[in-house]
């Protein structure tokens, strides 16, 4: 316990020290390639804002950007600014090639035409992300305070000639088994159990000139409005992370899949896909529809606002989404015990100035979730989260989750949290969870405090 308190003091000290950070630059892969700050796409990293969402939906390309392609009308360079930058601009304009211009001279001078001709990104599209967590569980009999290095991941992403997007997340380390003979911290379990390759997929943008983007590889199927890591808190959303019985299905689990998605009328997003679960003769399928009302559209075009008239609607937007997933799983490859299931859900994301409300509902029906009794099971999960951004680097939210199963099981979760980003690529989160479970007329409660540090570079 004393050692645990020492850890808390140590981390508190780091938190206090972080308050003295005055300037830094976020530099993960997309930031480097596009020479822009994390806040372009994120509220507090890694939660996406509407521009980050548009960037993701468009296969990692800015709207209408023809980056790396010749412009029809090469820009005329004017002015008397930084002579070095202007000289480069004039050279690029003369060649008809657009080029980013706000980089420091040294970086700009490294722009390579051969790299562009070869379809290679101008910067190595790689970054690292790491998370450290500390938890305090007063209800635990032992190890009330736990400090853990949870994961270190290699991230890569980008787009080649605006045609082929790619994204990769490889877990270099994720906390696994504890073997005191080897180390006093849990070790990486090792492949395949550590799920080392979490995501790797390619996106063929606007296939054959159509609005369709074709995606293939290992990724999280497009179901909920919010991808697993699209959050400021530590814990996952119950509506996407819950599992039923012994079923291995989770809506936010990565899978080998192919997906077709498209943005229609700039405000309607459709996605449908097939998941190949190993060892099964039948593929699983899913579909997603979302609609954006107000704000910029899914291609990040700003709405036409009259700057002479004040209206609260100019500061708000609503995204509505729904999805369905149907599949079948089993205990092992040779088992005749199959579980047919479906998952359906609906989400709403409302933003009004600095306030944000997320609402979600999910229902899963399993025909044989224990792979033996063929006892049908229906699980409903509700979620409501209210979030407020106090400053660009400080955000707080309160979340309520309610899970109910047709056998009478009820779970309530209350989760307040504060997220702080002293610099844009470092996030500190303090989260508290109060959980109340009612199973067979017996109610139990638990209280956990979590402190998380996430850094990407």
């Amino acid at each position, binding site marked *: 316990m004393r050692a645990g308190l020492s850890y808390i003091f140590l981390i508190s000290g780091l938190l206090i020290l972080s308050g003295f950070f005055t300037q830094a630059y976020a530099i993960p892969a997309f930031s480097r390639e*596009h*020479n*822009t*700050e994390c*806040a*372009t796409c994120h*509220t507090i990293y890694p939660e996406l804002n509407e521009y980050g969402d548009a960037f993701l939906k468009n296969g990692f390309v*800015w*709207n*209408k*950007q*023809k*980056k790396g392609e010749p412009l029809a009308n090469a*820009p*005329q*360079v*004017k*002015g*008397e*600014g*930084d002579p070095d*930058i*202007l000289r480069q*601009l004039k050279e690029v*304009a003369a060649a008809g090639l*657009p080029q*980013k*211009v*706000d980089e*420091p001279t040294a970086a700009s001078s490294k722009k390579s035409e051969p790299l562009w001709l070869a379809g290679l990104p101008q910067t190595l599209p790689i970054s690292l992300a790491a998370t450290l967590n500390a938890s305090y569980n007063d209800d635990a009999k032992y190890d009330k305070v736990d400090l853990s290095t949870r994961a270190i991941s290699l991230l890569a992403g980008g787009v080649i000639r605006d045609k082929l997007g790619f994204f990769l997340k490889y877990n270099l380390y994720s906390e696994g088994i504890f073997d005191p003979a080897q180390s006093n911290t849990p070790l990486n379990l090792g492949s395949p159990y550590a799920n080392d390759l979490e995501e790797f997929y390619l996106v063929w943008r606007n296939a054959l000139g159509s609005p369709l983007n074709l995606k293939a590889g290992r990724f999280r199927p497009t179901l909920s409005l919010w991808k697993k890591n699209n959050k400021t808190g530590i814990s996952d959303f119950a509506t996407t992370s819950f599992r039923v019985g012994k079923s291995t299905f989770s809506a936010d689990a990565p899978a080998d899949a192919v997906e077709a998605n498209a943005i229609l009328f700039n405000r309607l997003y459709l996605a449908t896909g097939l998941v190949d679960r190993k060892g099964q003769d039948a593929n699983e399928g899913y579909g997603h529809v979302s609609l954006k009302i107000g*704000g*910029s559209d899914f291609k990040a*075009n*700003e*709405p*036409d*606002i009259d*700057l*002479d008239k*004040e209206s609260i609607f*100019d*500061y708000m937007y609503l995204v509505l989404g729904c999805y369905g997933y149907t599949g079948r799983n089993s205990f092992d490859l040779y088992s005749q015990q199959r579980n047919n299931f479906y998952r359906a859900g609906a989400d709403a994301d409302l933003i009004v*100035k*600095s306030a944000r409300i997320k609402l979600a509902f999910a229902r899963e029906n399993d025909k044989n979730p224990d792979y033996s009794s063929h006892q049908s099971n229906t699980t409903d999960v509700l979620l409501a989260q209210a979030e407020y*951004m106090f*400053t*660009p680097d400080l955000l707080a939210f309160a979340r309520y989750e309610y899970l109910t199963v047709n056998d009478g099981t009820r779970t309530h979760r209350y989760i307040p949290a504060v997220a702080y980003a002293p610099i844009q690529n470092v996030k500190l989160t303090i989260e508290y969870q109060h959980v109340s479970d009612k199973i067979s007329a017996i109610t139990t409660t638990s209280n956990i405090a979590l402190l998380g540090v996430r850094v990407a570079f």
Partner: protein
Amino acid sequence: MSVLKMAIFVVLLAVVSTPVHAKIRAVGKGDKMTFDPTQIPADLKQAFEIMKVKCIQCHTQERTVIAIQTGIAPVTGQPFDKQATKAYGIKMLRKPKSNMSREEVKKVVDLMNFLIDEAAKP
């Protein structure tokens, strides 16, 4: 005498042929770069003060200077014209905690449009 006439002629020619605001000048380098304040007319001075204070809360003034001078938005690579200045103004108005009022956004958009016009002069 003829030399004096020639000198006066040359000076007058130089004065007449120098376009006013023909180019957008910038002062400073890197993140210290900003528009040369001497080329901002009196009625846009207030807008320039707003720009100097509010815009740099999130990005350097160099980004704006380069966009105006080149006609290209540096991050997106898109044309930076009057349509774009309004779109960026709206984006900044809608951005949480941008701390910019409607009136301030409008003034800064007007200033950027003026600078674009000036930059377009031969």
